[in-house]
């Protein structure tokens, strides 16, 4: 049975103007696999509590990247107000389906929509930490350059990892791909791979359909959806 841990915020890092990475100290954390998530519980003074799920962003320790949702109940607190030393309750690691293990031999295709990058970044980091040579390809769909997470890390060369950025609304100057939704051309050509797709529900449905259309085996496409708002 998974219990609630008390987590103390030790460090924050802004990823962009609306997303922030929070690093927590969680005594007794048992370790986790890349792709797993935690459930976070915030309790107000009057006893009202709100729960949300957030993916772990790295292969070790409890590091969450949270996208601020305007009018959200939880994400504004996590991205604006919470300060080092503050505590919250979290449960995890949970979710053994949407995970990648460094001993997996098959090439990997990661497809991220917006904040869906977080568990996929954990997989890229886990690959690097393990010194694995599994070929990785990331296709990251994001609204505009201002919304990119982990930009410096993704643009730095990482042997065996190829990164394709697909801006959906606005591109930076000189970017070769015009803005627009993800297409089969972004995800192709077909190559045998274990596929991981994470993003908002509509994005996941559309991307998984494109992958099947390219010839990927549906049984090798793992998906994780977050709600209409993510908060």
């Amino acid at each position, binding site marked *: 049975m*998974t219990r609630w841990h008390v987590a103390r915020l030790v460090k924050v890092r802004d990823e962009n103007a609306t997303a922030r990475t929070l690093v927590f100290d969680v005594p007794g954390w048992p*370790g986790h696999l890349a792709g797993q998530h935690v459930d976070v519980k915030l309790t107000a003074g009057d006893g009202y509590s709100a729960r949300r799920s957030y993916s772990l962003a790295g292969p070790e320790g409890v590091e969450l990247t949270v996208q601020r949702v305007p009018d959200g109940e939880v994400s504004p607190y996590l991205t604006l107000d919470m300060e080092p030393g503050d505590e919250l309750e979290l449960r995890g690691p949970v979710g*053994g*389906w949407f995970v990648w293990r460094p001993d997996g031999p098959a090439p990997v295709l990661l497809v991220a929509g917006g904040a869906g990058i977080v568990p996929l970044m954990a997989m890229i980091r886990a690959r690097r930490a393990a010194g694995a040579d599994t070929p990785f390809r990331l296709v990251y769909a994001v609204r505009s350059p201002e919304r990119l997470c982990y930009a410096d890390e993704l643009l730095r060369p990482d042997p065996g990892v190829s990164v394709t950025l697909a801006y959906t609304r606005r591109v930076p100057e000189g970017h070769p791909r015009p803005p627009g939704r993800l297409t089969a051309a972004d995800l192709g050509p077909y190559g045998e791979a274990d596929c991981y797709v994470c993003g908002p529900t509509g994005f996941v449905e559309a991307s998984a359909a494109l992958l099947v259309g390219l010839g990927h085996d549906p049984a090798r496409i793992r998906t994780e959806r977050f709600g209409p708002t993510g908060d």
Partner: protein
Amino acid sequence: MQADHLDGNALAGPLAEIFAADVSVAVSRCAACGLTGPVASLHVYDRAPGLVARCPGCEEVVLRLVRSPDAAWLDLRGAVTLRIPLGGAGPGAVASAGGEPGADR
């Protein structure tokens, strides 16, 4: 019914409160249409007093989970079977008691 749904990955935490194994990696068989697949791939609707998981093939209810302050109500009416991997290789290893990272239950 809400237009946007989550998926069975979101059941992992709430079910981990009840079960020793990670039920999100279990393979369920839909009582209505017979489709089998991981619980993680069920469509989960959370804008309700609890969580409602529906079959991705026929949208019939497979599982409902409601948590009250002192109890959990679990309705498995739409699942003929749940095949729950226990230990060994494969996705179930995460949920096993084998001391692997993630085996916190």
